């Protein structure tokens, strides 16, 4: 790996190596820029480091201190954080979905949220690029939305949980399909190396020790290294420095028990919807007393999560949902139906929680303990569940601010305030009813609802066309500080009713293209 001295002014210092930062590191390095990408976590080697074990793999999550509050505090952890090279793509469930086209103009077309500064047609082009680059496996024809190219790799075989989801959808008269997944269904060889196909071991919400998962760690980081980027792991960026002219000059980072400073011509923040605004706010200076890139006052605001409720039930037959990726089948029916009395949409997918997660659902949703908990857990191999990914609406009072607590680096931690709105609650109620109908129709018994769960994040550094109403422009470039960029899920004006990882990578691919054009035009 090429290494840059701190005294070198590199073209790009990128903070975070996940779906946004990892993608951008590879593509900018391949354009010939000098790149140093920082991650607060370690650089794991999948075959040598990833145990097949839920408890052990807690080391992939961001478990530094944070404070959550509000009427519906967000539970932080595995579903919405990552702290290792590759970010949360290391443990994401690989679900790779396109947004519904109308969501990019949700304000003007659908009447809620905010419009994106990028057209759906342009996103459709870049989605295709992203799906090819990460070798998504998916169905021959996708049932919803405008025509899209065939997925590069064939869909995976369905496990029983997925077959039962399909049966449930058919029973209530809605469509379903194989979920587009970023895990290989056939061997692959590319610029990043060789990978074997998925072996259906089922630890997909953790690190993939097969190397079939297409994460930033396995796709983008090797490409970044090959193109001469440096990946600086175990390096926590605590502050972005700005010069007398108000431009970013580099980043202060903590590594090996000391603070260092890396000079850079451009700084990209890609720490996701909590750490990105935290870093911008923690970088406040005399010139920027409210934090960097914050003349709109919107840094940290409009935090969105996604509703992640589920309905569970017991089947007479064995299901053994621990085998294969957990979300092999999906219905997006309610993302494309506008005859609902609330805004936004949702999808749902089949499930395969491993024992610890399953126990946490039994305790969290049913309050079970003692003999009742052990009895209920015996039905593990007969359980099925369907779980939504639902759109929550942006709301300025849902936000990230700085708490007084300090973390291990002496930095103020993020305070995360969240409350579900009336629309969010109506959407959840609708989804719980529909999901319940679908599994009841196929004979699920002893059904119960998991009503309190949320997952992915977005917002807090919204992109837009108006500098008064957004933090960055459509190129992910700060309105206030032109050599400061934000490239991760923070830039989402709305969060949609599908998993965000593909859209984050798509935005990053587009941003890399835009930087190429801006550089060529001398506008960087």
């Amino acid at each position: 790996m090429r290494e840059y001295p701190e005294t070198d002014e590199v073209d790009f210092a990128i903070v975070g190596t996940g779906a946004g930062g990892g993608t951008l590191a590879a593509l900018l390095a391949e354009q010939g820029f000098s790149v140093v990408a920082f991650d607060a976590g370690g650089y794991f080697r999948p075959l040598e480091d990833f145990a097949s074990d839920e408890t052990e793999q807690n080391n992939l999550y961001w478990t530094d201190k944070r404070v959550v509050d509000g009427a519906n505090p967000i539970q932080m952890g595995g579903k919405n954080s990552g702290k290792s090279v590759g970010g949360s793509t290391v443990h994401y469930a690989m679900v790779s979905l396109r947004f519904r086209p109308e969501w990019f103009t949700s304000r003007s077309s659908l009447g809620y949220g905010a419009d994106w500064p990028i057209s759906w047609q342009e996103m459709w082009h870049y989605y295709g690029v992203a799906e090819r680059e990460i070798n998504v496996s998916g169905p021959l024809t996708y049932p919803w939305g405008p025509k899209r190219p065939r997925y590069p790799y064939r869909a995976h075989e369905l496990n029983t949980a997925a077959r039962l989801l399909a049966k449930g959808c058919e029973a209530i008269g809605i469509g379903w399909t194989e979920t587009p997944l970023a895990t290989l269904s056939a061997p692959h060889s590319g610029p990043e190396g060789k990978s074997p196909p998925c072996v259906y071991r089922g630890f997909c919400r953790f690190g993939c020790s097969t190397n079939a998962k297409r994460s930033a760690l396995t796709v983008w980081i090797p490409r970044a290294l090959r193109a001469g980027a440096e990946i600086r792991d175990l390096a926590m960026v605590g502050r972005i420095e700005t010069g007398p002219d108000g431009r970013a000059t580099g980043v202060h980072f903590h590594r090996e028990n000391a603070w260092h400073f890396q000079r850079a011509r451009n700084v990209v923040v890609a720490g996701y919807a909590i750490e990105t605004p935290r870093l911008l706010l923690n970088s406040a200076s005399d010139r920027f007393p409210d934090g960097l890139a914050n003349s709109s006052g919107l840094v940290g605001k409009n935090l969105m999560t996604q509703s992640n409720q589920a309905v569970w039930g017991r089947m007479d037959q064995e299901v053994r949902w621990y085998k294969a990726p957990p979300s092999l089948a999906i219905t997006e029916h309610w993302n494309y139906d506008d005859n609902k009395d609330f805004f936004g949409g949702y999808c749902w997918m089949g499930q395969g929680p491993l024992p610890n997660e399953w126990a946490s659902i039994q305790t969290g949703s049913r309050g079970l303990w003692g003999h009742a908990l052990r009895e209920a857990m015996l039905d593990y191999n007969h359980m099925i569940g369907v779980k939504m990914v639902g759109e929550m609406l942006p709301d300025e009072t849902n936000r990230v601010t700085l708490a007084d607590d300090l973390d291990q680096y002496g930095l103020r931690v993020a305070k995360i305030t969240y409350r579900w709105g009336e629309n969010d609650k109506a959407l959840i109620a609708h989804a719980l009813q529909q999901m319940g109908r679908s599994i009841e129709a196929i004979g699920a018994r002893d059904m119960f609802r998991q009503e309190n769960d949320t997952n992915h994040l977005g917002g807090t550094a919204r992109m837009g066309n108006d500098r008064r109403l957004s933090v960055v422009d459509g190129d992910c470039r700060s309105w206030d500080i032109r050599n400061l960029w934000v490239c991760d899920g923070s830039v989402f004006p709305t969060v949609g009713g599908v998993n965000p990882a593909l859209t984050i990578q798509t935005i990053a691919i587009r941003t890399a293209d835009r930087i190429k054009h801006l550089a060529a035009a001398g506008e960087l």
Partner: protein
Amino acid sequence: MSDRSRYPGYDVLAKRETPSWDEPTRRAIDKRLHVSTAARFLTAAEWAGADALCRRILPQDEEGETVPLAALLDAKLFADHGDGFREADMPYMREAWRAGLAALEAEAKARYDGHSFAAISIDDQDSLIAMMQKGLLSAAHWPGLDAQRFFERRVLVDVPALYYGHPKAWSEIGFGGPASPRGYVRLEGDRRDPWEAAEAVSGQEEAARRLNQHVV
């Protein structure tokens, strides 16, 4: 807890040397199986209270191996391996456990003639736990920590994960356990790979037991 095992004779550890386990997995599980039984975070009094509480959250009355929950809890707190965040009106994990165990102890002593939580009957322990879960304990013995929130956010989050993260529990519920590099082949319903647990059908437990002797 019913006496009849759902997966008679199945031991997930029998796969330790098969292609279902790799070296990083063996390292991680070995560490768990050899957890220190000497307290490193909890005081002796806290350990006694935690041990009694864990025994009610996951009772292990049956014969045979038991999962050392108090030792695993102490190891988790010693390593400070938690979820990291706290709710605004709660302390972080370590402080929450110290405060919660102290409060539970004070609650038991006030209600049961000065007896420790560990010393009262299991029925009394269960009734105290149920009151904690239902929010029926007054704030008097819980300075700075809500009893119900402690139960929901710490006890029911941390303790079950110690039990169901242990191979003994995997064998009990018929979970395949670690599966790398081999993975699985048969994904259809009611079919199992030869390296998966066989479930006992009523009246044919012996057939399942025979199959489970060969789960490797």
